[in-house]
């Protein structure tokens, strides 16, 4: 197994997220062609069908689109779609997890808010 991939979620989901990250980072611009399934297969040492499944996930969501006979491209507005989607997930999952862990540790909601503020202060110094 090559780096970047882990067992935490399905491989094709990780491939989709990898493409999304590349779009967010600006490595893949809107309108630009995405790497082929064979390139992904070699890079991550996975079956090309798995890579195709990850790519198709993004096609279904409208983040990528297919040009027949040429390949997959980043759709217009892809970056915003990804940000919106991830924001939603951030609220639903990451923040929910934060509260769950806080509950386990007996940290009250008020305390948690103070901790977040303090952390934010430390971050921006």
């Amino acid at each position, binding site marked *: 197994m090559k780096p970047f991939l882990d067992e935490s979620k399905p491989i094709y989901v990780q491939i989709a997220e990898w493409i999304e990250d590349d779009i967010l980072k600006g490595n893949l611009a809107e309108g630009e062609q995405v790497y082929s*399934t064979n390139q992904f*297969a070699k890079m991550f040492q996975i079956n090309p069908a798995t890579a195709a499944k990850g790519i198709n996930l993004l096609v279904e969501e409208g983040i990528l689109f297919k040009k027949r006979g040429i390949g997959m491209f980043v759709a217009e507005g892809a970056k915003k779609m990804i940000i919106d989607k991830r924001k939603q997930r951030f609220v639903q999952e990451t923040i929910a997890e934060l509260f769950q862990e806080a509950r386990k540790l007996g940290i009250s909601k008020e305390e948690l808010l103070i901790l977040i503020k303090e952390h934010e202060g430390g971050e921006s110094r």
Partner: protein
Amino acid sequence: MTYAVETRNLSKLFGKTKALSEVSIALQENKIYGLLGRNGAGKSTLLKLLTGQLFPTTGDIKLFGETPYENAGALSKVCIVRETGTFLKDMKARDALKVTSSYYPNWDQGLADRLVKAFKLDLKKNYKSLSLGMKSQLGIIVGLASRAPLTIFDEPYIGLDAPGRQLFYDLLLEEYGEKPRTFILSTHLIDEVANLFEEVIILEQGSVKLIEETDKIKERAFFVSGPQGEVERRVRGKQVIYRDTLGKTAVAGVYDQLTPEERSVLETAGLEVSPMPLQKLFIYLTDERGEGDV
């Protein structure tokens, strides 16, 4: 639809021992299959039947729609590479490669030359003086360069170190990308190669225990852990293939459908749901001590 491999009620007896029992499988063209099974599960027997090296006791086999027995046409579409190698022992590696190449109508000499370079194999050496690792490399070169529509690797990595095996996986994927064809890979190093397989076949005691897409298997195989009573209550009705407890915490290994709704119910109940690696699933399904009945 023509399958690369199709068997019906395939059985093989050695004396009174049933090595293979009523195996019916259909393998599609241009996919990479993983063949898994414990020692003595019947993997090699199945592969020998497919390649015409053994005759079935009952049942039949079709390769690309044709019977492989006394049918040179069908057999010329198949290349099998075994751990022990099948070369003539007393000749230079270069000559062994040359003799072997003549069996395969699609042989690609250019590819063979590139692979020899990739493995840095010295072809001037006598075959019998090659190390185990070099013999494995030669076998891998034959398998890939044969370009046989059905290429079978029966544990081809014996003697190959970790970097050597990684190189094999890379070359296999490269070749598969370039010339898609049907590969069967029999292996014990499951976690290392699980991501290469589009589908997995698990044999146990001569029968097919499981044949399924790798992605689907991975979606169905997971662990649920948390307070003992809660875990037991929540996995009721699911196929549990593994159980363990540590203090008040229980772990259940499940092989079953889990809808996103069911999953969030488990998580809201404070249980942890984590994926089960293919190797673990394989162990639970084929361990006589376990509860792994599918």
